[in-house]
């Protein structure tokens, strides 16, 4: 969930809504005259507030603007989990950011490699370089689509999602190629819950691992889309039980209801159970 970096009230409450990841924003939601204030605020918040097990991300400013380096100096020292690099057009952008993070970790006595990275792809160039970007650093935990700048670059606007299909597929396949997460863009119309659910359903079908949200109201619907159904879970448990039984018998072949269970079926079943295990809905936690 994106949280504006210069809003103390939103920062204070960011942990209570059930988002898996909290992303403090120093970029687009902060006026150019308040960049220093937001940086100090997020720095102090990271050093002081506790957000439990949630992943803490900070979206920095573009490194070429000069502001991005200052952002890194502050938030890496404050112990951010993941730096979100905006407007990533090439692998060189990732490598440059990584080198700066490494320098700051060394200066601050932070173990090298502590700080993760996420690259946001927001241009046609970035989309075409998605594979190289995804493979550019071992610190990358994922790559994300930033749709608003991307559609502007394409000379179109956001509509039913067809304009984003190529970018989404490129980013998804690049992420899978590198073994990292693929994260979808925001849905800006917070009052259109049905439209949000339809878009979330589409990106889940494509294979994305998650989606950025801009309002706490979008968290619960998103979790519901990504949460496996009870029917899927029952089937997954039955598959894993059949595999365990076959293994116990020393058989290399397992079947369920007359159908052979091959490796991709097992991988999907395990993934489904893993997802259910980490889901706040299953744990009975409020979301």
């Amino acid at each position, binding site marked *: 969930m994106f949280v504006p970096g210069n809003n*103390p*009230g939103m920062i*204070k409450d960011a942990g209570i809504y059930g988002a898996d990841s909290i992303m403090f924003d120093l970029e687009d939601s902060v006026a150019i005259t308040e960049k220093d204030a937001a940086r*100090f*605020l997020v720095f102090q918040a990271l050093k*002081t507030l506790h957000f439990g097990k949630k992943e803490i991300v900070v979206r920095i400013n573009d490194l070429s603007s000069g502001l991005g380096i200052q952002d890194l*100096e*502050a938030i890496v020292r404050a112990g951010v989990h993941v730096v979100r690099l905006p407007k990533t057009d090439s692998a060189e952008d990732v490598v440059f950011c990584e080198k700066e993070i490494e320098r700051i970790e060394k200066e601050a006595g932070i173990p090298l490699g502590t700080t993760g990275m996420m690259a946001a792809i927001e241009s046609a160039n970035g989309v075409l370089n998605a594979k190289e970007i995804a493979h550019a650093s071992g610190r990358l935990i994922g790559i994300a689509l930033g749709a608003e700048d991307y559609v502007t670059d394409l000379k179109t606007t956001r509509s039913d999602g067809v304009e984003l299909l190529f970018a989404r597929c490129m980013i998804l396949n690049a992420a899978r190629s590198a073994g990292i997460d693929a994260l979808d863009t925001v849905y800006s119309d917070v009052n259109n819950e049905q439209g949000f659910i339809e878009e979330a359903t589409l990106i889940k079908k494509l294979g994305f691992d998650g989606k950025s949200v801009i309002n706490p109201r979008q968290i619960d619907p998103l979790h519901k889309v990504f949460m496996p159904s009870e029917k899927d879970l029952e089937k997954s448990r039955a598959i894993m039980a059949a595999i365990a039984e076959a293994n116990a018998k020393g058989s290399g072949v397992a079947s369920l209801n007359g159908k052979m269970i091959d490796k991709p079926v097992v991988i999907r079943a395990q993934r489904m159970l893993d997802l259910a295990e980490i889901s706040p809905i299953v744990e009975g936690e409020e979301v």
Partner: protein
Amino acid sequence: MKLMKTGTAGTMESNDIMVTLEPKETGGVQIALSSSVMQQFGRQIEAVIRQTLTELGIAHASVDAVDKGALDCTVRARVRTAAYRAADQQNYDWGAM
């Protein structure tokens, strides 16, 4: 840190604090604080303001603070921002904070 001019940071929004620092040559740190939670947290807010200014090496200043229920970390952030602005300084020593 030497204050060169008036520096302001923060907003009048809930959970924030608006801090204005003015340079002084002598007389220590003078704080005029108003807060929506003055009775409960007034002394704590003033202590955080003083401590933050001390950390920045500011011995003399006039502080006007309007608090709307800010956490300590917000008070620290706004005082630091106002101080760096008042000192017209952009060389931040993040490692020392």
